[in-house]
């Protein structure tokens, strides 16, 4: 094999400040390699329109390798590898022309015209090139350039993909309920927290968790993978699931979890913040004990570091207070029309009984 320097992009962002390259970013570079080669073949065909096919050995075993990673933030040095002693003595010129044309496309700013020599169908490669970038991150393809560093950001990547199509692929992190599964087609429908129906495809390892969550109220799942979004950033489908996590009663648990961010003094300069160990214990309890048919309550911290679940109705209020200091659950219920008031105390291990009592009161 022989090698020659090809390009040394710079990954910019907090994730890259440790001078390491996440594996997800390596996927971006693999997609870039594909585009370089396919575009080079296209450029060759454009120059040689009398030829029916690309000559055998055209790419001379071309592939890109990361030779080393330099500091600042992360600068992987890509070298073009080719097979020695092949039909062609070196890489075809179209490989370098391809690299330069890709740089021109990436450098195109909003309101500027894209180069006409770049085929429309190839913009879809940017569904994968730069997909690992998070907000605030970028890839400078020509970091040493004084005039144009050829910066690819998540926003620019989206614009490139949408230049000639109406959807784009991006990393997805979505929570919802599993409404349907087709075991033969390995597809399904997820209902998001925003009540949007999103279709998905899945692989075998995820079938068990999907089946267990299917059609069960409260059995939310978080899906990490690749989704297809429209021009309004609306998620339409999930084309790849990389991770699936069961999150029982996610809306209620996440309401409790927001209190991890409270500090003492949160309420008008006073107000004790709930303890992290109490919140962890409570989220575990409600994950296991909250009834499937019970509506999720409003969740509020008390000034003395407790957590209060409250069902707010036009004519009644039902509160369950997790009183951590006294290790008890306190129930208070007022009905404004009848002026009825109910007060009850449970031990801290009686969440099922306490929630059951609330279910009964809601039926009155």
């Amino acid at each position, binding site marked *: 094999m022989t090698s020659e320097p090809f390009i040394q992009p710079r990954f910019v962002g907090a994730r890259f400040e440790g001078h390491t390259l996440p594996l997800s970013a390596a996927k971006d570079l693999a997609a870039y390699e594909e585009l370089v080669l396919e575009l080079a073949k296209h450029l060759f065909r454009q120059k040689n329109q009398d030829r029916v096919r690309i000559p055998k050995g055209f790419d001379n075993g071309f592939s890109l390798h990361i030779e080393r990673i330099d500091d600042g933030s992360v600068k992987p040095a890509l070298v073009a590898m080719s097979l020695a002693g092949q039909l062609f003595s070196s890489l075809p010129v179209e490989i370098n022309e391809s690299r330069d044309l890709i740089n021109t496309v990436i450098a195109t700013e909003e309101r500027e015209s894209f180069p006409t020599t770049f085929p429309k169908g190839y913009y879809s490669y940017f569904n994968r090139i730069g997909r690992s970038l998070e907000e605030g991150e970028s890839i400078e393809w020509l970091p040493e350039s004084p005039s144009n560093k050829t910066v690819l950001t998540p926003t620019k990547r989206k614009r490139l993909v949408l230049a000639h199509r109406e959807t784009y692929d991006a990393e997805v992190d979505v929570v919802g309920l599993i409404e349907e599964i087709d075991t033969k087609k390995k597809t399904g429908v997820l209902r998001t927290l925003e009540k949007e129906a999103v279709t998905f495809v899945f692989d075998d390892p995820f079938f068990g968790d999907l089946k267990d969550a299917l059609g069960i109220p409260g059995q939310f799942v978080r899906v990490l993978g690749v989704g297809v979004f429209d021009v309004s950033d609306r998620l339409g489908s999930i084309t790849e699931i990389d991770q699936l996590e069961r999150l029982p009663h996610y809306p209620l648990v996440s309401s409790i979890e927001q*209190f991890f961010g*409270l500090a003492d003094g*949160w*309420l*008008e*300069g*006073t107000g004790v913040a709930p303890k992290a160990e109490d919140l962890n214990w409570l989220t575990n309890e409600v994950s296991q004990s909250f009834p499937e048919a019970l509506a999720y309550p*409003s969740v*509020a*911290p*008390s*000034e*003395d570091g407790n957590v*209060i679940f*409250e069902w*707010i109705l*036009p*004519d*009644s*209020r039902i*509160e369950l207070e997790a009183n951590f200091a006294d290790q008890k659950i*306190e129930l*208070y*219920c*007022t009905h*404004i029309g009848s002026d009825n*008031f109910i*007060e009850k105390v449970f031990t801290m291990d009686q969440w099922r009984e306490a929630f059951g009592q609330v279910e009964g009161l809601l039926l009155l």
Partner: protein
Amino acid sequence: MTAQSGPEKVFRQVHPHHWNGENPNSVAFSPTPKDQDQLSVDDAALVSAEKSWTHFTNNLGFKSAGTWAITHAEIVDSGDLSLRSAPVADQADPAKNNLAHCLIDFSQITSKGAKRRCAQKLALLASARGRQFPPA
């Protein structure tokens, strides 16, 4: 009605953690021992719902999801509660002055349950009236 005989209607500011995006939680109408069982409100005859919110957030630097209202009659009918004018005059920091400041006195109620009953009633009544500022 004048301040001497008690305000007719008062405003209560509600912390963003004490409402569900539509209605205030009952705990927003429940004083704590550190308040010495006194719940701060503003006399609606002396200040608008917006001014009450502005004073609370801008002058005092506290957080509020909005202003809710309850009447004197509702307070009295909710239990052993009373309402009295308690103007704030802070010579060291005049920006904190608040002539409209009043207190709902929960101190005659001894049990936690009875206090929560009153707070739930006030929250129900304030919710029925709707948020006064910002407009819903």
